[in-house]
């Protein structure tokens, strides 16, 4: 599997470290339902079979976080963008 790093180009997946689901957003710790929201944020996952948006860290390359759109049933990669957009 090769990941199209927007900065480095297509690189072998072994250069990257995987974090997981990129659709999660860190909840507001001051919100009244923070307990519930953090439980869901830390532990619960959609875990879809099909299109998945996920974080990879290019640790052996540009050391940027890359958001990759990948199909979990075929491993086909539809696209990738840098976290926080291009700089």
């Amino acid at each position: 599997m090769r990941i199209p790093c927007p900065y480095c180009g297509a690189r072998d997946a072994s250069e990257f470290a995987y974090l997981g689901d990129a659709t999660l957003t860190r909840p507001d710790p001051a919100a009244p339902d923070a307990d519930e929201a953090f439980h869901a944020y830390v532990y619960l996952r959609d875990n879809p079979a099909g299109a998945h948006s996920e974080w990879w860290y290019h640790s052996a390359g540009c050391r940027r976080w890359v958001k990759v759109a990948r199909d979990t049933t075929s491993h086909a990669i539809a696209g990738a963008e840098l976290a926080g957009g291009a700089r």
Partner: protein
Amino acid sequence: MRYSFLSVLKNGFTGQSGWKPAWRDAAPKPAYDVIIVGGGGHGLATAFYLASEHGIRNIAVLEKGHIGSGNAGRNTTIIRSNYLLPGNEPFYEWSMKLWEGLEQALNYNAMVSQRGILNLYHSDAQRDAYARRGNAMRLAGADSELLDREGVRAMYPFLDFDNARFPIQGGLAQRRGGTARHDAVVWGYARAADQLGVDIVQNCEVTGFLTEGDAIVGVETSRGPIRAGKVGLAVAGSSSRVAQQAGLRLPMESHVLQAFVSEGLKPLVDGVITFGAGHFYISQSDKGGLVFGGDIDGYNSYAQRGNLPVVEDVAESGMALMPRIGRLRLLRMWGGIMDMSMDGSPIIDRTPRPGLYLNSGWCYGGFKATPASGWCFAHLLATDTPHATGTAFKLDRFRTGHLIDEKGVGAQPNLH
């Protein structure tokens, strides 16, 4: 038909004409007391123990393909009970005890072979950790033995003891551990459950749930709706997908794990050996092939096939452990979908939906757990209370903080 020496002899004299199919390929009835979704080892074991231990006979096991075609047919067949934490070890030791009596209970040759498992250590710190683990095992009634370097050398003289980076200092042995024939475990449970009246329904995919208010009262399937008093899910890597049809989000990710078999050899490895400085485990099947594997690939996947970096990692670990396998050719490799839970330990519990029960989160250790998983899930389904050895496997432990994290790496499934 009961299998025995006499039945083998009799069929030998009659041209093997007396054998019957080991189980019925049942068509679904409109309703059951209990439906088990998933015809793998865990689902079939659950059905068998529900029928044999709890007297519930009106049961269906629904399988989307053919039984044993998922992870039950894809694992590396290792059985052991060498866990550390109090939530895990009594459960796995109970599983070990069930393995020891399995063939008699099922009247089926599952080729349970207690050839021993040896976990190698390569540093003082790892030796201390294994001493602690061995003591924890003994406290739970399991056997363990801490070996020094010479003790390991007496068992496996061909290992690379003086490897420059990872010299072998010794190992933790569990002599009651070993292997079993994975397919035969599935077939044995299927046959024994079938004889107690359980319907094994193949090519029957669950596509949704029948509900009354909040409660689950049956399933929609590719072969029509089926009502049930209780529905139990034992679908491993598909847990999130099936649970999502009931509106549940699980603390789980599905990952791919690869396994490998070499060409056939004369007897070389008579037990199970695990490398302590990487993730690598190896045994030899009765057909002669070396069966081995390593880490999961580490990214979400439902593809049942992996990628080459892990193949390379497994090969490197194997070479560091026993260089003599370097010229062996690989015969086959494959992947299975692991239900990686957020703390690396399983879930056997009720769900927030009344009537729906969950057996999941086996990560890549589900095969050894098959008997006790079935035993505990059957106990839960029959009595609505967890079995004594499975009280820690709660679905809400992530909410309450009672995690069972053997590796201590946190909520990152690809690290467990």
